[in-house]
């Protein structure tokens, strides 16, 4: 398919602007750019068709099953899009003044109240634009807390080896050294290793629970106690909150700070990689350090205020506000009962599908899972040469998105499957059947799987070549 630049014809343009109705104001020659940027020149019809064609070469939740582990690709309700597009929100200038933006402040305030209840935290900020951004802020809050107490030697953060890659990367950005905590054979945090690692230099612990193996660590209270006893704080990576929504709360488990992914648990669409939203909730001990522009309600007026020891700002304005509007719509739709139904549905669907796949597929851990499960194809690969990648690509040929591959890193030939609660039993049945069919093919005709996908506009790509000799823009 041609690029926009290859469809460009000099002189083609849309009619968008009226003629200038005030005197021209020439810019001095020495300030002007020498040449115009080579942007496409294209008719509206061709532009519209271009994006229609690109859209056909993509796959959304609107197209089919999307069991991408850790990403919670649930249905994105249409009404939430309508609400975010309301003039009152979409046309609000971020600096128009709180007296003229009471509706926007109300959105932030009400979303905060609900998330406080959902997480068991005492305050929430919406400034972070994504989960990783929330992680960075959360760790900066932990740093600020220790420093405020004059406790300046806490420079290490404990991160289980099953953690998302963003955890250690965020720790580095927060100036902390990462200490990796091994998992036990059963996928839990190794308590003895944790005890050995926790000490006077521990700033905190970062943990996902349920973890990336889809397991709820039942020792969680013990884990947070060990860290607290050593003087550290506990950070909850909320990427997997969907599993326990309305069932259990990070605040009750002993966590001091948590980030949520509104684009996972709270149904806002992923947009091909963003915008997301990564609000951060904290216990009272961290409240004073939150970023600027928290919202308070006084005498029926919503007002911004700056926490007394604020870490400042991690972003201009108040976060990805339009994403928060969508999430608030969703949360108001769910209510208390709906929240619980989400977790129940997510965990039920994952276990139902797992049951259909086992024992043909080997799970990384035995027993029940939470909202997602991890399969290991290590034996299959040894026996047939068919890898997790091959199976994933074959799933694409069967009309669904592939699961997350090769993650968590501690499982070899991993496929991580998260069906979400918004899929019907029939969808799960069909997907499981397709995966079993792929397994049969692996033994009968493995080459077919090495060749997959064959139904997509392109087949397997030369990724090594792309990185070795990077071409990152159109060559005019």
């Amino acid at each position: 398919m041609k690029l926009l630049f290859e469809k460009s014809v000099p002189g083609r343009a849309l009619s968008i602007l009226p003629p200038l109705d005030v005197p021209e104001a020439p810019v001095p020659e020495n300030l002007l750019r020498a040449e115009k940027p080579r942007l496409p020149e294209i008719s509206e019809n061709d532009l519209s068709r271009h994006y229609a064609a690109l859209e056909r070469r993509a796959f959304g939740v609107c197209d089919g099953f999307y069991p991408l582990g850790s990403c919670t690709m649930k249905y994105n309700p249409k009404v939430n899009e309508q609400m975010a597009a309301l003039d009152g929100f979409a046309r609000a200038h971020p600096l128009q003044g709180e007296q003229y933006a009471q509706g926007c402040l109300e959105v932030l305030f009400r979303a905060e109240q609900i998330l406080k209840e959902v997480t068991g935290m005492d305050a929430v900020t919406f400034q972070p634009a994504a989960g990783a951004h929330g992680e960075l802020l959360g760790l900066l809050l932990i740093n600020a807390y220790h420093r405020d107490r004059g406790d300046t030697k806490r420079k290490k953060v404990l991160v289980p080896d099953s953690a998302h890659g963003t955890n250690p990367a965020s720790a580095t950005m927060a100036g902390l050294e990462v200490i990796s905590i091994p998992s036990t054979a059963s996928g839990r945090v190794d308590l003895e290793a944790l005890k050995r690692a926790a000490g006077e230099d521990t700033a905190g612990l970062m943990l996902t629970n349920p973890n990336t193996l889809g397991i709820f660590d039942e020792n969680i209270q013990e884990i947070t106690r060990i860290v607290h006893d050593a003087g550290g704080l506990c950070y909850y990576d909320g990427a997997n909150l969907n599993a326990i929504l309305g069932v259990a709360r990070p605040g009750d488990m002993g966590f001091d700070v948590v980030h949520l992914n509104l684009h996972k648990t709270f149904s806002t669409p992923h947009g091909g990689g963003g915008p997301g939203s990564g609000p951060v909730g904290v216990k009272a001990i961290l409240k004073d350090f939150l970023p600027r522009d928290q919202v308070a309600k006084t005498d029926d007026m919503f007002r911004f205020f700056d926490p007394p020891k604020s870490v400042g700002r991690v972003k201009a304005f108040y976060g990805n506000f339009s994403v928060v509007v969508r999430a608030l719509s969703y949360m108001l739709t769910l209510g208390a009962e709906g929240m619980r139904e989400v977790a129940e549905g997510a965990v039920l669907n994952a276990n139902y599908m797992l049951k259909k796949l086992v024992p043909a597929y080997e799970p990384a851990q035995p027993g029940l899972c939470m909202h997602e499960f991890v399969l290991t194809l290590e034996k299959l690969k040894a026996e047939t040469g068919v890898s997790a990648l091959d199976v994933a690509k074959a799933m694409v040929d069967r009309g669904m998105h592939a699961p997350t591959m090769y993650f968590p890193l501690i499982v070899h030939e991993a496929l991580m499957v998260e069906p979400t609660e918004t899929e019907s039993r029939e969808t799960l049945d069909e997907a499981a059947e397709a995966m079993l069919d792929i397994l049969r093919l692996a033994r009968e005709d493995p080459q077919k799987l090495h060749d997959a996908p064959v139904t997509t506009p392109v087949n397997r790509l030369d990724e090594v070549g792309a990185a070795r000799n990077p071409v990152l823009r159109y060559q005019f």
Partner: protein
Amino acid sequence: MGSYVPSTEEERLEMLRAIGLERMDELFASVPEPLRVETLNLDRGLSELELQREMRYIAGRNRVFRSIFRGAGAYNHYIPAVVKSVAAKERFLTTYTPYQAELSQGVLQSIFEYQTMIAELTGMDASNASVYDGATAAAEAVNMLVDGKRRVALVSEGVHPMTIETLKTYADGPGVEIRLVPLKDGRTDLDALKGMLCDSCACVLVQSPNFFGLIEDAEAAANIAHERRAKLILSMNPTACALYKSPGELGADVAVGEGQPLGLPLSFGGAYLGFMACKAPLLRKLPGRIVGRTTDRDGKRAFVLTLQAREQHIRREKASSNICSNQALCAMTAAAYMAALGASGLTEVASQCHAKAAYLREKLAEVGLKPIHEGEFFHEFATECPIDPEKLLCALADRGILGGLPVEGGILWCATEMNSREDIDEVAAAVGEVLQ
């Protein structure tokens, strides 16, 4: 009221039985009893009709201004209908980061096109696929340029105040030092900059047009920085980039900025778009997703996420940044906007913005709001205000007009192609009335 769970109660029971369970709570057996929540203290869920009523009521509590003369980092531009239709496409909306390249060529190609347009606009060699916003783009740029020896970033006080705050917060963790370069007559004091540069300076950050709308001498800043082997990060308004010398022409090493003017609604500050582009030698330090061209097994042209060895999911604590989710849909919207306008259209938007701002400046001066700064400006400028600015702005708000932003010493005004001559005459007349 709705959780979007499709299965009926009967189906759920059957599914439970299929996995050998009787009751829902058995699914949560691994959650210790004391941690189980009985029920959350939240209102009952709303039906779609009730939700519409509730959200429309909340939205109605915001004032929608008939005419806007405020910018300061968020700009009121016309968004062509075709751009809105691209941004609303359901498949683009609901797809994930394009890890599965064969299935995601449409998304990948759109990012490649976006990267090309940003590189063209900024005069740089390569762009990433976006970061969160203009402020975080500046912070990421500082992070990519500091190293073990060079730990200081010199930042002009003409940079947007919220960007400076973000830089300081980001710098706190790894111990990067942000030193502010003072202004002289509203622009970066280049003599001061020269004096402040030292061998521990990794970079200089300048914004042009700066917070007060003034065009900076970024070329001189680049030369001064380069003399001491520091890099120049130039933050630029993307609309202005179409008309004025690009960061590349001015000698910048990294170009960043807030992409909101490229077709994104004001939306109370987000979701916006941080763009980042750099010269070739810095490519492998650039954070975030990057799409590259490649081929498939049949030699067909294709696109793929590339240079992933920089990224958190591969490098973990050694990654160039922790960024994972970005602002992909905003980037696609910006690309559609740039394509809809083309170079001529975007230059025309920039010229009109400038002309309207010049006209507004003149009209406001006539009624008693004297400009604070001399010299070249783009579409923003500051004026003095002989009365309490709040009083003036309230009076304008009563007429449905969002006036400029109160800043130290006066008011910061903005005009764009959205403000007609009548709007400008009206605001000037209203200001005249209030001042009398």
